């Protein structure tokens, strides 16, 4: 069964460094998302991406964040200058276009900012 994959599974970085989190969505899906979950908190929406552009973003998704679909398969989240509070699990998700709205999630990347 097709699935969303994410790399790396765990990323440790120093505060102020740039990180890139990578995702390969399910191949026939057209909507792509990033969510994050800070330890002990809810899963929060960051950004959605459709037709090669951002379609929605949350207040969390400020100028430090960017997303890109550099080729036909990868979907990346870049954090330009990481802060301690960026430490979280980051989940990529994707879904088909259509009347149902189920999103399928990857296993997540645990980002630790020191």
């Amino acid at each position: 069964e097709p699935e969303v994959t994410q790399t790396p599974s765990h990323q440790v970085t120093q505060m102020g460094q740039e990180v890139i989190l990578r995702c390969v969505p399910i191949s026939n899906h057209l909507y792509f998302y990033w969510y994050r979950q800070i330890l002990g908190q809810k899963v929060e929406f960051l950004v959605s991406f459709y037709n090669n552009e951002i379609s929605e973003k949350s207040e969390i998704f400020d100028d430090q964040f960017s997303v890109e679909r550099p080729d036909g398969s990868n979907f990346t989240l870049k954090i330009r200058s990481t802060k301690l509070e960026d430490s979280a699990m980051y989940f990529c998700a994707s879904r088909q276009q259509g009347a149902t709205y189920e999103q399928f999630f990857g296993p997540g990347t645990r980002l630790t900012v020191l």
Partner: protein
Amino acid sequence: DQQVKQNSPSLSVQEGRISILNCDYTNSMFDYFLWYKKYPAEGPTFLISISSIKDKNEDGRFTVFLNKSAKHLSLHIVPSQPGDSAVYFCAASSSLSGSARQLTFGSGTQLTVLP
């Protein structure tokens, strides 16, 4: 922002019995609801969904009920199995968020099914 609430952080059920997980929402513009299951160190796994035009959807052992007037939904698992032990998240989306339909999650309920 508590638009989707799961008021029970944990629930324990005996194997073979029914598990009922509850979720309340405050945003009347939500029109599609989903349940996800999550094991530690994994991403959320989609379980079942329901559109606001329905009040019930069933898939095998899983049934979701929606009460729009009460802004309440519930997930029934019967019979419960030890492998069902996980955190269950309720999520909702609205057409007002555009075609992207991002999800708003509840805080989750840890279900433990005792053998």
